[in-house]
C-alpha cells in the first residue's frame, strides 16, 4: 500500500544527531547510500542540509524521545520507525539508540534499516513479500547487493514514477556481483544431476558441463518461498537439493519446496548449540553427507537418515590441506571442490590430498 507522496521531487534531509556506535563518516555514508537506493529508481533527488527544518529529519533516540508519539523499547524489538510524507513529524525517521548500529552484518546494519525507513518517509507501507526491503522484519543482506525487490520498485514508482531516461545522468540500477571479479566468492554450491549451481546473496548461477555460458537467475524465481542468503546446499541421493540458512533448511525437488519446510536443522541430529551450517556435500560413492561448521565436520548417513556417532571431528584430519572455514563444497567426478573466499581447492577423497588450488570463479568462462 502507498500513501500520497511528497508533492515535489527535490527533498532535503538533516542528520540531527549521531549514534556513538559508528563514526560520523560511516553514519553519513550509510544515510547517503540509503537515499540513493530510492533515487536510482525514481526522479527523486535528496539534498542534505545541516541547519533548520528539512523534509526528512533523522535522529537517534531511546524510549520516550522528544515529541514523538511512539516510544522505543530498549535493545531488540523495535529498531526504528518513520512517518509518512507531510509537515511536522511527517517524513521524519527515528532510530532506537539502544540497538547496536553497524556497517556490517553484526548488530543492525544502519544502511539497510535506514533504506527501509526512508521507504516509509516517502509513502510506502509494509510489504508482505519476504524478499522486499519493505518487509517489516530485519534481515541482513550484503550491502553490495541492490536491496530493492520488484515489489519495492513497483510500489515507489506508483507514487513518483520512474527516473528520467537519461542514462548518462543516472547510474543504472546496480546489478548482482560481477562473476568474474577477482574477489568473487560464493555462499553455497550444489550439484543437480549434471549441472553445478552456485549461490550468492539473492542470485544463483547454473553451469552446465558442456555450455561455457552460465545462466544467472534470482533464487526467488526458482524457489519463491526460500529466503535469499542461502549458506549451504547439497544434492542428496534422492534427486533433491537441501538448502540451509541459519538453523533452518528446505528440501526442494525441482521447483517444488517439499511441504512442511523449512524445518529446524535439529531434526537432522544437530544438537541445539549448532546454529548454522557453513557447507555440505553428499559423497555419492558412500551415501554419507559431510556438514562443515567452523573447523569441524559432522557426518550424516543418508540411508539411515541419522547423524553418525563420534562427530564433530576436525576437518583437517579427514581432509588434509583444508584448514580454512569452508564456504561451499561440491563433488564432481569423484573429486571434492572446497571453497573459501576467492579460492578453491580440488581434493581427492581417496588419496586424501589436495590436488591443486584455483580461483573460485574458475568454473565460469572468465
Amino acid at each position, binding site marked *: 500500500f502507498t*500513501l500520497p507522496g511528497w508533492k515535489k521531487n527535490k527533498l532535503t534531509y538533516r542528520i540531527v544527531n549521531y549514534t556513538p556506535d559508528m563514526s560520523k563518516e560511516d553514519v553519513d555514508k550509510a544515510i547517503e547510500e540509503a537515499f540513493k537506493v530510492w533515487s536510482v529508481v525514481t526522479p527523486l533527488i535528496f539534498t542534505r542540509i545541516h541547519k533548520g527544518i528539512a523534509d526528512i529529519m533523522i535522529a537517534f533516540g531511546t524510549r520516550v524521545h522528544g515529541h514523538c508519539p*511512539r516510544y*522505543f523499547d530498549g535493545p*531488540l*524489538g*523495535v*529498531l*526504528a*520507525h*518513520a*512517518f*509518512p510524507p*507531510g509537515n511536522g513529524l*511527517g517524513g521524519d525517521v527515528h532510530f*532506537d539508540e539502544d*540497538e547496536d548500529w553497524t556497517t556490517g552484518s553484526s548488530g*543492525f546494519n544502519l544502511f539497510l*534499516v535506514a533504506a*527501509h*525507513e526512508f521507504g*516509509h518517509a516517502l509513502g510506502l*507501507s*509494509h510489504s*508482505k513479500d*519476504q524478499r522486499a526491503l519493505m518487509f*517489516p*522484519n*530485519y534481515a541482513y543482506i550484503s550491502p553490495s547487493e541492490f536491496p530493492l525487490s520488484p515489489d519495492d520498485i513497483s510500489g515507489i514508482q506508483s507514487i513518483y514514477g520512474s527516473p528520467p531516461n537519461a542514462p548518462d545522468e543516472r547510474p543504472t540500477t546496480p546489478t548482482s556481483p560481477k562473476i568474474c571479479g577477482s574477489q568473487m566468492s560464493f555462499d553455497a554450491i550444489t550439484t543437480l544431476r549434471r549441472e553445478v549451481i552456485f549461490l550468492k546473496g539473492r542470485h544463483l548461477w547454473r553451469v552446465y558441463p558442456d555450455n561455457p555460458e552460465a545462466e544467472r537467475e534470482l533464487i526467488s524465481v526458482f524457489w519463491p518461498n526460500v529466503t535469499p542468503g542461502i549458506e549451504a546446499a547439497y544434492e542428496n541421493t534422492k534427486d533433491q537439493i537441501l538448502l540451509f540458512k541459519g538453523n533452518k533448511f528446505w528440501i526442494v525437488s525441482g521447483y517444488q519446496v517439499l511441504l512442511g519446510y523449512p524445518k529446524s536443522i535439529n531434526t537432522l541430529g544437530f544438537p541445539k548449540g549448532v546454529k548454522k551450517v557453513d557447507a555440505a556435500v553428499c559423497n555419492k560413492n558412500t551415501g554419507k553427507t559431510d556438514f562443515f561448521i567452523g573447523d569441524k565436520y559432522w557426518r550424516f548417513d543418508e540411508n539411515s537418515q541419522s547423524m553418525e556417532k563420534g562427530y564433530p571431528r576436525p576437518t583437517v584430519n579427514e581432509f588434509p590441506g583444508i584448514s580454512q572455514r569452508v564456504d561451499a563444497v561440491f563433488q564432481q567426478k569423484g573429486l571434492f571442490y572446497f571453497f573459501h573466499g576467492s579460492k578453491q581447492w580440488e581434493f581427492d577423497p581417496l588419496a586424501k590430498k589436495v590436488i591443486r588450488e584455483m580461483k573460485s570463479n574458475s568454473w565460469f568462462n572468465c
Partner: protein
Amino acid sequence: LPTHPEKDNEGDAKLVQNYLNKFYAVEPDPNQLGWKINSESGSEKLQKMQQFFGLKVTGKLDNETLEMMKKPRCGVPDVGLYG
C-alpha cells in the same frame, strides 16, 4: 538456571498483546462520531498478523507465530494508516 515456565508464558502473553496492539490495532475511523470501543478481538488481530506473515492462520498463538513476533523489526504498524 532453569526458567520458570509460568513466568515465560506471562512474558510471552504480554509480548503478544503489546505486539498486536502496536502493529495490528485498527486505526479509529476519522468519520466516526463519538467514542466506540475497539471490538476487534485479540484472535482477529492475531489472524491478521498470521495472514500478513504468511503463517498458518488459526487465530491461536503457536510457536511459529511467537517466533515471528520476537524478530527485531520496524516500529511502523503493518495495518492501518501509519501516519
